[in-house]
């Protein structure tokens, strides 16, 4: 997919792009951003580095994962295919995306991730500073009882257009959590189809926005088979003149009885210049289901701030603490402790 594809889609699906005027926002992208990408790290987990969308085997660390697992190139897209009982991937894999001074105007990446029956995969996408437009298309196929934990941090400062599609077979589990902090414009689409019985999806995310940042999370979960469950928790904190968008749709197909769908979107407006738009949708064609969604938009509680101040915190500390607490519910959904710490650290840094 390219920027042109996204623009085209935004024309065709006006309703789906109601709150994100893609063409206008692309025009206001900053010419340059601070580039202090230190991609060195001290861990020992497998780490694949992509510069300007191209896989860099020299800078990557394979650990227990042989390089042959990741195949392909920029032109055809990268395939990460894990067979049945993929027990060798016990450690999370990290994908690092960054750009340098040779970056083209737009970077197009296509990832295909396929996890065989009973396979296990944990992947963290780390989007470091990139002044250009990153277009990321991710196709995820989970076979029976496969489990895929998929994390994503966007702190690129640039424009990020992403579309992930996931097909989850019987008993499969797809978990996505995304942290957006530092972007000019992000459109993050996640489209999950629960195709087999007892498949599950858990989507979580946090958007921390300030300045003129614009972030749009659009999810769609289709319950196509009975006895599936989905759960979504999204938290947005907006400061400055930023704008946050959450559009979440749960579709329950005709025969998808015993569906359990839950969705929560909560937003904090810290400034009177910021704007939050939420559109949580339910589209239900089966009767024996339990589906609910909730959405709130509000401010920090003055009384809570007062309480913390009376305990000796200054205004800024009190607000930072409350913001962290507000986001904490989403953090608790992250099952990998190390990553929870990474996310928490990012959030704390943002709040201060």
């Amino acid at each position: 997919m390219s920027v042109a594809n996204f623009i085209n889609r935004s024309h065709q699906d006006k309703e789906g792009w109601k709150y994100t005027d893609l063409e206008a926002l692309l025009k206001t992208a900053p010419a340059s951003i601070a580039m202090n990408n230190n991609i060195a790290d001290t861990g020992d987990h497998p780490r694949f580095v992509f510069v300007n969308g191209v896989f860099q085997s020299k800078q990557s660390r394979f650990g227990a994962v042989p390089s042959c697992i990741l195949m392909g190139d920029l032109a055809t897209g990268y395939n990460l295919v894990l067979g049945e009982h993929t027990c060798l991937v016990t450690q999370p894999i990290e994908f690092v995306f960054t750009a340098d001074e040779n970056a083209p105007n737009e970077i197009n990446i296509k990832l295909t991730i396929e996890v065989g029956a009973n396979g296990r995969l944990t992947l963290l996408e780390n989007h470091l500073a990139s002044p250009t437009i990153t277009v990321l298309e991710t196709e995820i196929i989970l076979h029976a009882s496969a489990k895929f934990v998929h994390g994503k941090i966007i702190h690129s400062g640039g424009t990020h257009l992403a579309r992930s599609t996931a097909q989850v077979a019987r008993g499969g589990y797809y978990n996505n959590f995304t942290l957006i902090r530092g972007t000019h414009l992000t459109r993050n689409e996640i489209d999950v189809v629960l195709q087999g019985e007892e498949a599950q999806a858990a989507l979580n995310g946090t958007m921390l926005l300030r300045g003129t940042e614009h972030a749009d999370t659009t999810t769609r979960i289709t319950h196509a088979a009975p006895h599936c469950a989905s759960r979504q928790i999204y938290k947005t904190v907006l400061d400055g003149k930023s704008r946050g968008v959450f559009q979440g749709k749960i579709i329950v197909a005709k025969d998808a009885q015993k569906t359990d769908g839950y969705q929560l979107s909560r937003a904090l407006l810290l400034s009177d210049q910021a704007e939050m738009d939420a559109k949580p949708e339910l589209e239900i064609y089966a009767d024996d289901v339990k589906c609910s969604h909730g959405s709130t938009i509000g401010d920090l509680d003055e009384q809570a701030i007062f309480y913390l101040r009376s305990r000796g915190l200054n205004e800024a500390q009190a607000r930072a603490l409350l913001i962290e607490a507000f986001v904490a519910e989403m953090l608790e959904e992250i099952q990998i402790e190390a990553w929870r710490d990474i996310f928490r650290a990012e959030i704390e840094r943002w709040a201060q």
Partner: protein
Amino acid sequence: MNASTNTLAKDLAEQKYKYGFVTAIDSETAPVGLSEDTIRFISAKKNEPVWLLEWRLKAYRQWLKMREPKWAKVHHPPIDYQAASYYSAPKQSDKPKTLDDVDPELLATYAKLGIPLQEQEILAGVQERRVAVDAVFDSVSVATTYKKELESHGILFCPISEAVQTHPELVQKYLGSVVPVSDNFFATLNCAVFTDGSFVYIPKGVRCPMELSTYFRINAENTGQFERTLIIADEGASVSYLEGCTAPKRDVNQLHAAVVELVALDDATIKYSTVQNWYPGDKDGKGGIYNFVTKRGACRGARSKISWTQVETGSAITWKYPSCILQGDDSVGEFYSVAITNNHQQADTGTKMIHIGKNTRSTIIAKGISAGQADSTYRGLVKILRTAKGARNKTQCDSLLIGDKCGAHTVPYIESRQPKARVEHEATTSKVSEDQLFYCQQRGLNAEEAMGLIVNGFCREVLQELPMEFAVEAQKLVSISLEGSVG
């Protein structure tokens, strides 16, 4: 799903429509088709002033450039706007002066519908609740009761065509001020061809002593009904207004595109209740009314309040979003809705709450019940503008599904630009659980009664907002839907 709910869904789908009869009455009908001539014809019939004719023509010319909206979750074959007649009125030699002059056939129709057109005498010592009725039959108002008594309070309650003659300044000032001429396809069409409807003006500081009500009846074949209602509550005034509607059973779809405008000035309160029971079509989805209605209220004054309550049981298609524009500081908007759809009925309904003034508050409670092969959608907008400091909104949408062929959808839009505002939205979808049914049956209710009890309980929050007369009717309507469904 067990056998009892299956039977119930089937029975729901086959429920009888009680108001499907046709009144045999001579009527004067405009030739089929829509053109500027049609509009001039209607305007001439109503003996309208030039400004109103010009207003209609302007709307018509705009309408020609507009397209039917496609965003609602409803499906219907294309409507041929040239195939219907836009004016039909029962033949009367003169406008009846009193009820005695009204065609007895019409009076019988209303008696059959259970609408009291005779003003009840107040019995000594017994203070009956009275309701003033404006009866609209196809394109014209045939009778308005209690006019004299209302006039003694300074209240104007009359057909809008009469208000155009007697109080043109009020009509001209407020008509189209809440729903602009170019608002949407159906509203613009209504501006061009509206025929009758009610006009209410409550002067400063007056509490309307009785419920006002308009009863809409479509009778003639191959016509559409385009009524226009305008209610103005001046400073400190309050009024409760009810609206009811029915139509005969026919195989062809008939269009009903109404516009309702409410204006509440400082400290005024308007309560607007609807029990919509247009003919919904038969069990195969043949026939029924297309109900494409624009309803909007403006809380112009500080501390004003507009409350919409609707029970939507009829119509083949309902497309309706009663809204509140909360301009005045501390103004309040409310929306309570029950939408019951069965067979092939489709309902896309909800509300818009636009918060502009400080400390404005709104409450939305919407209950959708789908049975048969029906689709019911809640579509709503809560918008908090930057100026609406301290605004508050609470929305609750619940859907209930009966049967496995129906659908229930929720499409809320929530937009906030004011940090000192609080917006909460909650929606759930569920079915009547076997446990609930079992519990009730264990206590001696049969399956049908149990379902009736549960469904009525599900709607209770909304039904209790209705004025008493309507609450009784609405509860009956809900249970009629469940009639004969023994497990």
